[in-house]
C-alpha cells in the first residue's frame, strides 16, 4: 500500500555509459530485460548493460497481443513454454508488480476434420506432459462462448475446439517494466535510446560494441533483438536461417464483458481476446512476404473484421480504435534459435516468430544460466543452431500457423 501511494522511481534514468561491462545485452525488450534480471538475481552478475535503440519494450514486447500458453505441438515446444507459463504464473509476486495475468483459457476452433486432427494431436502431446489441454465438442464450445456463431450457416462451420484452460492473457508492458525495475534495482544499467551501430570482431570474439554514445567492451554479448536479429548478426558476419515478416493487430473500443477465453481460428487466420479494460484485441498471422516495412495494411483489417463479425455477430457495431504492426523473425521450422555461436562470446536469441513474449521468463532463466555458467539447459538444447545442419527441425508450423 505504501508503494501504491508513493511509487517512487521505477528505474534510474540518464546513466552514463561505461567503457566495459561483464555482459552487454543488445535489445531492451522483455527477453533482454528478463535475462538481465536473472543474471543479477540468480547468478549475482550485475555488471550488465542493456542497450535499447528506442524506449524499453518498443519492439515486439510492446506490440504482441499478450497471450501466454503452452499447448504446443511438439514435446520440446510444449515443455519449454509450460516452464515459461509456470514462471509467468508467479511473476507478479516475483517482481512485486502486477502483470495482471488472468488464466482465462485459450480456445482454438476447429473448422475442419483436418483441424480436429491437429487439435487431437496437440491435446495428446500436451496431456502426456501434464498440460491441461483437450478437444471439446460443439456443445461445450457453445456453453463456454455463447457469443460465438455456432450455426452451420457460415463460411466455415465450427466442428469443435482445442481448449487450453491454463492459457492466459496479461499486461505485456507491465512485464517489461517489472523486469526492468527488478534488474535496475539489482544494479543492471538500462540504456534506452542507445543504438548499437556496429560490432567489431577479432579472431573468434566480439571485441567492441559501437554506439553513438561511445564504444563499449564486454565479456559476453547477447543479441536479443527479435525482428532486428538479422541486422545485428550481420555485423559479426553471422547469417541466421530466418526471415522477417510483419505482423498486425488491432484493438477496439472497450465494451462490457463479452469474452472470457482467447478465441483462435487458424482457418480464418485470426485470434481475439478481451482485455480486463474491455477492449477486444485481435490479430492475424504474419503477412505472406518478408519485409521490414512496418505499416499497417487495409486488407488486414478488412479480412479480420469480416471474419470476426461472422464469428461474433454481436460485435458488428463495435468500433476499431487503433491498428499497429510489429516485426517477427521466422525460422524454417517456426522454432527459435537460442544458442552460442561460432563467436565465443556472442550469444543469440532469435527466430521467435510470434512466440518471443510467451517465452521471455524461461529464456531469461536459461540464457542467464548459459551466460553465467556456460551450461546449456536441457530445455533450450533442442533449439540450437545445430538442428539446421543436422536436419532435425522442431516443427511448430502446425501450431504456429496462427495460434498466438
Amino acid at each position, binding site marked *: 500500500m505504501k508503494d501504491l*501511494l508513493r*511509487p517512487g*522511481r521505477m528505474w*534510474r*534514468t540518464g546513466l552514463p555509459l561505461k567503457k566495459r561491462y561483464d555482459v552487454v545485452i543488445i535489445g531492451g525488450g522483455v527477453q533482454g530485460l528478463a535475462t538481465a534480471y536473472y543474471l543479477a538475481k540468480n547468478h549475482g552478475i550485475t555488471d550488465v548493460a542493456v542497450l535499447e535503440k*528506442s*524506449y524499453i*519494450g*518498443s519492439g515486439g514486447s*510492446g506490440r504482441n497481443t499478450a497471450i501466454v500458453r503452452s499447448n504446443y505441438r511438439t*514435446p520440446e515446444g510444449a515443455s519449454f513454454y509450460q516452464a515459461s507459463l509456470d514462471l509467468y504464473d*508467479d511473476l507478479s509476486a516475483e517482481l*512485486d*508488480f*502486477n502483470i*495482471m495475468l488472468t488464466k482465462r483459457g485459450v480456445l482454438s476452433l476447429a473448422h475442419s*476434420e*483436418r483441424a*480436429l486432427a491437429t487439435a*487431437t*494431436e496437440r491435446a*495428446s502431446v500436451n*496431456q*502426456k506432459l501434464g498440460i491441461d489441454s483437450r478437444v471439446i465438442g460443439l456443445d461445450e464450445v457453445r456453453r463456454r462462448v455463447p457469443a460465438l456463431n455456432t450455426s452451420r450457416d457460415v*463460411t466455415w462451420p465450427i466442428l469443435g475446439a482445442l481448449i487450453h484452460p491454463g492459457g492466459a492473457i496479461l499486461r505485456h*508492458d*507491465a512485464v517489461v*517494466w517489472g523486469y526492468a525495475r527488478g534488474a535496475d534495482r539489482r544494479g543492471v544499467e538500462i540504456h*534506452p*535510446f542507445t543504438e548499437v551501430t556496429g560490432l567489431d570482431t577479432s579472431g573468434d570474439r566480439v571485441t567492441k560494441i559501437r554506439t553513438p554514445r561511445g564504444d563499449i567492451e564486454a565479456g559476453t554479448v547477447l543479441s536479443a533483438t527479435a525482428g532486428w536479429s538479422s541486422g545485428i548478426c550481420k555485423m559479426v558476419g553471422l547469417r541466421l536461417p530466418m526471415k522477417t515478416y510483419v505482423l498486425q493487430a488491432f484493438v*477496439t*473500443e*472497450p*465494451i*462490457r464483458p*463479452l469474452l472470457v477465453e482467447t478465441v483462435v481460428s487458424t482457418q480464418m487466420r485470426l485470434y481475439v481476446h478481451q482485455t*480486463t*479494460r*474491455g477492449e477486444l484485441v485481435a490479430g492475424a498471422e504474419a503477412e505472406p512476404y518478408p519485409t521490414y*516495412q512496418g*505499416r499497417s*495494411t*487495409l486488407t488486414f483489417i*478488412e479480412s479480420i473484421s*469480416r471474419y470476426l*463479425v461472422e464469428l461474433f*455477430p454481436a*460485435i*458488428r*457495431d*463495435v*468500433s*476499431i480504435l*487503433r*491498428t499497429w504492426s510489429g516485426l517477427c523473425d521466422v525460422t524454417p521450422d517456426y522454432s527459435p534459435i537460442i544458442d552460442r555461436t561460432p563467436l565465443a562470446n556472442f550469444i543469440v536469441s532469435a527466430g521467435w516468430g510470434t512466440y518471443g513474449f510467451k517465452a521471455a521468463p524461461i529464456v531469461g532463466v536459461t540464457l542467464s544460466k548459459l551466460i553465467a555458467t556456460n551450461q546449456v539447459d536441457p530445455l533450450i538444447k533442442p533449439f540450437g543452431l545445430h538442428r539446421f545442419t543436422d*536436419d532435425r*527441425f522442431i*516443427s511448430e*508450423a*502446425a501450431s504456429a500457423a496462427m495460434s498466438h
Partner: protein
Amino acid sequence: MRLPRRDGETIDRDDRRTFTFDGKEVQAYAGDTIGSALYANGQRIFTRSFKYHRPRGLSCAAGNCAGCLMEVDGEPSVKACTRTVQGGEVVRSQTISGSLERDPMRVVDHVAGPVTPVGFYYRLGIRPKAAWPHIERMLRRMTGLGRVGEAPPKPHRADVEHRTAGVLVIGAGRSGQEAAARYAAEGRQVILVDERAEYASLAIDGVEVIAPGTALGVYEGRLVPVHADGLMHRIRAEKIVVATGSIDQPLLFEGNDLPGVMTPSAVRRLVGLWSIRPGTRAVVLAADEAGDEAARLLREAGTQVVETIDLRGVRPPKVKAAARHGLLAAVEIDGRKIDCDLLVASAGRQPAYSLLAQSGCSVRFDAEKGIFAPDQLVDGVEAAGSVTGEGAAVLAAAEGAGKRTFVCPCEDVTAKDLVRAVGEGFEDIEIAKRYTTVTMGPCQGRLCHLHSVRALARATGVGEAALGTTTARPPWQPTPLGDVGGRKLNPGKRTALHDANRRAGAQYVWTGVWRRPDHYGDAAAEIKAVHEGVGLMDVSTLGKLYVSGPDAEAFLDGVFPNRISTLKVDRVRYGIFNTDSGRIIDDGTIIRVGERDFLVTTSSGGVDQVYEAFLLWVAERKLAVDVVNVSGALSAVSLSGPKAREVLSRVTDVDVANEAFKFLDVRQGAVAGASALLMRIGFLGELGYEIHFPSTAAEHVWEALMKAGAEFGILPLGVEALKALRLEKGHIIVGIDTDSETTMLECGMGPMIAWDKGEFVGNEALGRMNERGADRALVGFTADDLPNEGTAVLVGGEVGGRVTSARRSAVSGQVIGLAYVPAAIGSEGSAFELDLGEGRRGGAKVHIGAFYDPDGERMRG
C-alpha cells in the same frame, strides 16, 4: 428550445423527427444530430467517464472528443454530436451504473481519487495470489464502455466500392473547397470528402462530394478508405490533398472536463447549425480570434457573456471550474469567482495532421506557435489550409497540475498523473503513453496528444522537439468492424462441373480454396461402386502445369528426386516435390506427351506453390523451359472400378484393350467427342482412368460418362470415398499424412530416389538424412478401435508419433490407418498403442504395403 430562425442553420423546422433517449421521447428536426437535439431539450450530462465516472457532456460538438458517447440502435460508443437524426432511433446512455444523473460509481471520483493514481493497478492485488482472479473479474465488470449483444443487431448494409481519383481532397473547409475547385478546373477527376454532415449539400462544378464521409487512413500506394454510411469507398488516388484543418485544443485547468465547459467550435456549431442557445451566463477564455467570434455568437443567441479574456500575450490566469450537481456552476479566475453555466475555453488550434503523418510525412514541433506541424511531405500528397500550421497556435498550459485537470478526458488522465509518471521514470512520450494510457482513448489523441507531450516536456526538461510525437495510426475515426469488413464474401473456387455435381446431390466441403463434393448422399455406396462396378469423380481441382521446351527433361530431372529422363513418351509417373531442405511440398504425376512436352499434375491445394517454385527454379537455372499453368483450362475426371474399361470404350475412339492401353500408359483421343488426354493410373486401387479435357466440354463429358455407366450402376464419388479408397492402398495425401517436416525417406519412398543422377531439389538434405537414417516412419497400421485422426501413438508409454488417417475398411471391416511411429518399430507386425483419450489405450500393429490388393492385380488387370 430553439432560437428564432437563423441564416445558415441546417435544421429543417418543417420536418420534425423523434427518437427516444433512455426511454424518454426527444423532439428533433431534420438536420439535427442526436447530440444537438438532446442539448436543445436541456440534456447536459451525456455520459460518464471511463475511470472516475465523472459526468461528461457536449464539449466539442464536432466528433473530436468522447464527451457524448452513446448507444444508438445497439451500436455502442456513437459520438452523438455528429450522428444525424433519422427519426425513430433508440438511444441509450452508456458507461453508467444507475442513471446518468445519479451514478453510484461516481463515488470512485470522490473517494478513490487519491488511491487510484496512474498505474495503481500495477501495485494492487499482488498478494495473496488467490485474490487476484476475483479482483480481475470485478475490474472487468466495472470497465468497458458500451454494451453489445443485448439488442438484436439492426439490419445493415455494408459494402465496398473500389474507386480511383485523380485528386482526392480530404476536408471541405475553405482550403479544401478551393483546392477541389482548382483541380476540377484543370480537368482532373476530383473527389472531395468531409466527415461533417453540413457539407452534404455542397456542390462544386466537376467535383464529387462525399459527405458525411470519413477518410480513415492513408495506406501504401495512396489508398484511402472512405467510410460513408456503411459503404466503404476504397479510393486509390493519384494525388491526395489533405485539408483537415485544425482542432480546438482544450484549456487545462481544474475541472476542465465539466459539462458546461466547451470549445469555441462547439458554440459556433450549436448556434450556427442548430440554432441553440448554449447557455445563459457565459465566460469566454480563448487564445485566438475564435474567442471573439464565440462571444459574438453567444450575444446573438441571447447568452449573457459576463467576461471575455483573450489569453494571448497575457500572463495565463489561474482558472478553476466549480460544479453543482455535476454541472458547471461557476469559474474562479485568479481567485475571482464568476457564476456561469457556460465556459468557452480554448488554448488555440493544433493542425489535424494525422493523415499526413500516415502517408509518411514528417512532423516537427514549432516552438514559436507551440504546435506540431507537418514538415516534409511525400510525393503525391499535398497539404492545404490550417493543417499546414498556418494560422494555428496553442498556448502552453498554465503552471500547476491539479488532480482534476484532465489532459486526456477519454481516459481520465490528469496533468498530475503525467508528472507522476515522469517521476517514476516514464520519461519518453511513447512509454509514458503506455503507462498512463494518455492518447489511447476514443478521441485518437485529437485533444490530448499535444498537451501530453508538452506536459512531459515540462516535467522532464527535455524539449517537445526532442520528445517527438507518437505514431499516427489508422483509423482516424473509430469505425465499426462490420463496416470495415464489408459484405461477407467467401471467395472459393468451383470446378466447371460444380453445377453437374450439385444436380447429382453433392454435399460440399471446403478443401483449401476449393468447394468439393464430400459425398453425394452415401459415401459407403460410392466406395462399393468403385470396388464392384464403376465410379466417376470430378478431379478438375488437380493442378496442371504444362512444361515444354528444349530443357524440359533436364529441368524436371533437376526438380524431381526420381529419374524423368527415362520416362517414355505416352507414359506417366508418380512424383514428389520437395523443398531445398528435403521436405515434401506436394505430390503429383508427370505425363510425357512429347520429347519436349510434359504435363505435370499437382494436388488440388498445391498448384500455386509448385507453380511459383517451378518459375523460380527455371529462372535460377537459366533454362529454356516454358511453364504454363493450365489448371483452369483443363477439367478432369477419374473413372474407376472393374467396369471402367467398358464404360470408357463406349464414349472414346481410343483402343482401351488392356494390352493396347496398359497401366501407366497415356493416350490422346476423343472422349464423347471432346479431345482428351487419357492416362491409366490407380490411386483408388481399382482399374482406373484419369481423363483431362477442355473445361468448356466438362459437363458434356461428365454427362456422357454418367450415361454410359448407368447400366453398371455408376455413381459420382466425393472426397470421403477418395480418402477411404486410397487408404486401402496405403497412398498418402499430402497435407493430411504429411506435415511441414515430412520427408520421402519417412514415407518409405526412399527407393524412388535416383541418387546417382546428380543435383535435384533437396538432394543434399535428403542425402544427409539418408546416411543417418530417418527418426520416424509413416506406416500403415491395423487396430482394434477406430482412433480419431491426430491420436497419439504411444511406445513404451511415451508419445512416439501420431495417427494421420484412419477408417474402418469397407472391404475387411478392420480398422486401418496411417501413422507416424519411431523408425525403430517401423517394420511389419510391430505392436504399439494408441492414446484413445480419458486414459483409454488401444492396441495397433504396423502393416507395410497396401491393405487391399497388395500386388496391384486389380488396377493392372
